[in-house]
């Protein structure tokens, strides 16, 4: 009788001890780094990008990468003066790694400048790619299924299929038409025509 609540306690302790390990957090941002300064620079960036986009057609990623690089370079001189002016030769390497870590943790949150027009085009292309791939996958699965059906011996109506039907991304129309006259199916094996259709 006494062991039951003890068992419950033990099991609850064990279950609750499955805590998620805390991911390593980057160092906290100093107060003066976040806020207003970044907003102004972002606005300047916007204007620059808009002007460049209006001027002509340059490839989007090159334009963006140049601007982002310039953006980051503009910010880094602000941070470099944080390092101590005198550097001991003995721990030069340590100071350099410390500087790198400091620079990385104090960089503004990453962002990308993209117009809505470009974003919409990219979404459209990605959707087309996804649909194309899904159609190909469905066709592959369908072909495998049909091959398996054709190889199954239909003279014995109780023979199950060798493996379960793979999962298609749409309603499988084969289920309803499977139980046809087995003799006809056997004779028609060599001259089967299947309309290929894409299931999306």
């Amino acid at each position, binding site marked *: 009788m006494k062991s039951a609540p003890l068992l419950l306690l033990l099991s609850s302790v064990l279950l609750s001890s499955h805590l998620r*390990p805390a991911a*390593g957090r980057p160092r906290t941002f100093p107060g003066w780094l976040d806020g207003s300064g970044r907003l102004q620079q972002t606005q300047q960036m916007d204007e620059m990008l808009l002007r460049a986009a209006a001027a002509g057609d340059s490839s989007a990623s090159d334009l963006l990468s140049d601007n982002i690089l310039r953006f980051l370079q503009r910010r880094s001189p602000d941070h470099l003066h944080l390092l101590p002016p005198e550097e001991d030769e003995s721990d030069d390497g340590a100071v350099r790694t410390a500087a790198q870590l400091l620079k990385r943790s104090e960089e503004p949150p990453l962002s990308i400048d993209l117009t809505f027009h470009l974003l919409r085009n*990219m979404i459209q292309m*990605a959707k087309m790619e996804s649909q194309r791939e899904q159609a190909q996958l469905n066709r592959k699965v369908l072909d495998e299924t049909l091959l398996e059906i054709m190889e199954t011996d239909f003279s014995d109506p109780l023979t199950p299929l060798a493996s379960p039907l793979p*999962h298609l991304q749409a309603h499988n129309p084969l*289920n309803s038409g499977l139980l046809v006259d087995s003799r006809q199916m056997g004779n028609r094996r060599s001259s089967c025509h299947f309309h290929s259709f894409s299931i999306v």
Partner: protein
Amino acid sequence: MRVMERTFREQLFFLVLCLSVLKGDSRYIENNEISKDELYSFFNSELKRETPEELMYRRPLRCLDMVALEGQFTFTADRPQLSCAAFFMAEPNEVISVDYDSVDIDCRGGDFITVFDGWVMKGQKFPSSQDHPLPLYERYVDYCDSGSLRKSVRSSQNVAMVFFRIHNAGSSFTLTVRKHINPFPCNVISQSPEGSYTMVIPQQHRNCSFSIIYPVEIDISEFSLGHYNNFPKRSMPGCAETGDFVQLLGGNGIDTSKLLPITDLCVSFTGPTHMKIGCDNTVVRMVSSGKFVNRVSFSYRLLDSQELQTIKLNNVEDFCFSN
């Protein structure tokens, strides 16, 4: 007498069962489960859809890319690429998980791969800080800072993105993108300019937004905030006082907290509920106190250039407006 009746009933049921089995009605009972029938599989609430290796989609990742399907994407730097970003997108009821497969970059040389939980554009984030459960610094997960601890990052909504920088030619990394079902999606970016959606917040104190990054005509067809669902719909001026209401926002950025409200709907409204919003981003946002199960259903379609022109001509202000 009663025992006789019982055995007779049992025999009758057994007979009926046998007849139905022989008749073949049971052939429709098929195991189309995508999870294996393991003994403790019902403890595992997530369906493990394991794609076999040969069916997994693979392609190279570009410096600026958008990915809307599952698969493995490898980025190989042929020259230093210092500012790259890839966007991931899924269906509204899915979340995205990104796994690092083989990463060969020089962390100490300044390379990084950072996954962001949401989308960032021009400094604006979706979902906004008010609508997202995590603080901002937790939404950026850097491989170099936490690579060995976190091999997999999962988003909280249907969009995610990754920023990366490679200094040395020849460095590469592979990401495996998977999608998982999210039964109660909160923040969504719509993949298409047309469609319909129902947003449900089941008694949670949170705000959820549905973002359509197109100028659309939106039609709110149904709307229930807890026990107010029987009342005819009416828009009140003092909506913000009630804890549960629906906002229509519009603007030119993806941060919902920086968009301008077009209208608030709380208790009820009469008449047509169509609105044409000529903004680049149209958002339906639901504010929920947590006391009720709130639901809003709406449909939307893209505005063609004629309608957009009409809207622009009818308004003196520069701000995208609705009529």
